[in-house]
């Protein structure tokens, strides 16, 4: 996106091959399936997930009208799975608009016919953050945590304190807080707050 000026230039420079023919008397049709057709750079083709940029936040899943993007949690294996199915996609490009990291990349691809449905599916698996304290996986991914760390204004937050807490489950967070408060203030908090989840 750094070259946004030249992008406009690129748009200006692009010309449709067929346009010249339409003026002439010659046939205006093209032997289409036997030749490649180039789509203009503005064309909204099927999007593509860039796994390097994706953090697994699921913003695209919320925006997608036809459920072409689906998010699944596999807590057992510690995996969050983002599935994109081009067969359901209506190419509205809402996912591209809402993606906070630019991981949803627009393409000008439009021919998605294939012999196998699996060719239409893109899957990105993210490792879920793991809570050392209680041995459980969190709802969000490691990358999400990294991403949040990067965008939080450092002047406001005490990064070291955050570092400790971020990778904890809600339960563990509460427990840690209570423990800390106990240590610091000697206040008696009800014991059930300290009980580990599996203990009862």
């Amino acid at each position: 996106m750094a070259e946004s000026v030249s992008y406009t230039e690129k748009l200006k420079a692009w010309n449709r091959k067929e346009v010249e023919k339409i003026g002439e008397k010659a046939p205006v049709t093209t032997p289409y399936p036997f030749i490649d057709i180039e789509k203009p750079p503005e064309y909204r083709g099927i999007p593509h997930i860039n796994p390097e940029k994706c953090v697994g936040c699921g913003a695209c899943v919320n925006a997608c009208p036809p459920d072409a993007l689906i998010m699944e949690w596999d807590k057992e294996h510690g995996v969050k799975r983002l599935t994109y199915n081009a067969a359901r996609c209506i190419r509205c490009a809402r996912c591209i608009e809402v993606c906070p990291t630019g991981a949803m990349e627009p393409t000008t691809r439009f021919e998605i016919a294939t012999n196998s449905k699996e060719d239409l599916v893109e899957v990105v698996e993210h490792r879920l953050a793991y809570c050392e304290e209680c041995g459980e996986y969190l709802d969000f991914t490691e990358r999400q945590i990294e991403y949040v760390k990067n965008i939080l204004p450092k002047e406001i937050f005490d990064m070291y304190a955050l570092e400790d807490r971020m990778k904890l489950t809600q339960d563990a967070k509460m427990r840690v807080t209570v423990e800390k408060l106990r240590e610091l203030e000697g206040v008696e908090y009800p014991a059930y707050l300290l009980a580990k989840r599996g203990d009862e």
Partner: protein
Amino acid sequence: MSKSAFEVEVECECEACEKGKCDSADLVDVLSEREGLKEFYEEFKDSIHECRRLTYGQYLFVIDRDVLPEATLWWHNHPRFKETHMSTAVGTDERAIAGKFSYMPLINVQVEAENMDRNFWVLLKAYMPADDPSFPSVAAKLPAALWIEREVKDLLGFRPIGHPDPRRLILPEDWPEGVYPLRKDMDYRHSPMREPETEFREPPEGTTTVPMGPFHMGIEEPAHFRLFVKGEEIVDVDYRGFYSHRGIEKVGEGRLTYNQVLFLAERICGICGYQHSVSYAMAVERLADVDIPDRARYIRTLMLELERIHNHLLWVGIAAHMVGFDTGFMHAWRIREPVMWLVERLTGNRKQYGMNIVGGVRRDILDYRKEEILKVVKEIREGTKKFLDIALNTNTFIKRAEGVGILPYKIAKAYSVLGPTARASGRRIDARLDQATKTAMAYNEVDFKVPVYKEGDVLARVLVRMDELFESLWIVEQLIDQMPGGDIMVPIGKLPEYAEALGFTEAHRGEVLHYVMTGEKNKVYRWKVRAPTYNNLPAIPDMLRGYNVADAPLIIASIDPCYSCTERVQFVDVRTGRVRVLTEAEFNELSIKNRGVF
């Protein structure tokens, strides 16, 4: 939220009035805003429970269900408002909110042609108790209500008392009795079945049935016309449709957020998709009371007109194809192609532009594109002129189109026929100028004429459309010229709950109407779509009667029918005085039984 000049006067609202004697000043204000409202109020004083302005130019009256026919006909037959018509009606399951069902005819009142500040919409809402959802039918006196009353009967289980033909319209034959898909207690995934059973009429004495459809070359989509013929002459017609129902309204109400519905709305029709998209966006913007930026209005109008241009070219191609004039077909589509290429570059797709978002548009029109647009406009104008010159000088083509499929003005008005079909029969209606489109589109700021022809035949429909095409080209040029700068969208946060409003555009087939009622959590509680073909199709039998079988495809094509948009809710049949339905099996049986034309 900033309010532009025309919004200021919309401030006051008359909320619920006591029955019969609403003497608050607000009511007087509301009633004096438009011509005819006071008159109506005086006439039906005892039956009006509530009246309020939904938004600019949309007035809701809550009335007793007993006076529904009188009230509807009062507007429809008003001697001064000549082109007033009943656009459609909405049935809603409001048991979750009000504990009642509601049925609401929507009336497009035309005080003065092409004056969007004097014309208005009247919504006549009648509540019905949950245990007795019935209302007196108006269909016997007003054919425009025939389909919609049967639709609410099928989908919501209402009982139109005195309906001349209370048979199944929308639901398929294998749908069980007593299951009403649009009631809120039915899940949108539920799909019950039963053994198919149908009712259909015997052909008139001495005729043969020619089944046109459900699959027929002359009809692009599944629809079933049964022509009762004597020799080649059509004696009577029978229609069975709604084969391509997709349950869009139910999905829109069940699952999606208001911005997701927009994309579904765009996919109601493959041809006038943007019209539906704008209509829906307009409805939501009206109920949220948001003004969209001027630039967005202009871009919307530009895209709407480009869509109209290529759709009219598409249609004239189809019409030529219907009479075997394939050269005209190919050339019309050749002329059309540059528009498709242009919109592909402007929006990112040839069709289903995906340009809209509630509150504005998603893509800006880059300034250097203006030249390109003007170039295409020029090309189209020249190409179309040349094409018309050839087509209208092809003797065989004119011979087929002239004096065929005549739709008289009276029938056009009775069925509320819309768009070019109506204008070819002398009705002076065009939702672009007649109703307040200025909140979502910029038609009030451009100059154009609405062509009207009196002949009412297929040729007149061709000519109306072609005149309109040239007007559209002229509109596009003006829009490019006047395009203001600024933002292209305003964000909309939370929608008000249980607010309702109408959105409408004039598609190339006629007025598209969307009614939206919001629910909780930014969802849509009730979404009603009325595609123009829904009103035009019932008039087809009247156009067909007395002409040849050979003319049938051309006459049917001449209203530019779009079955899928019409059938966003499930199964139809047209009435011609009597109505009937037919299944696949019976259709096969029939074609075997009725052998020999001569």
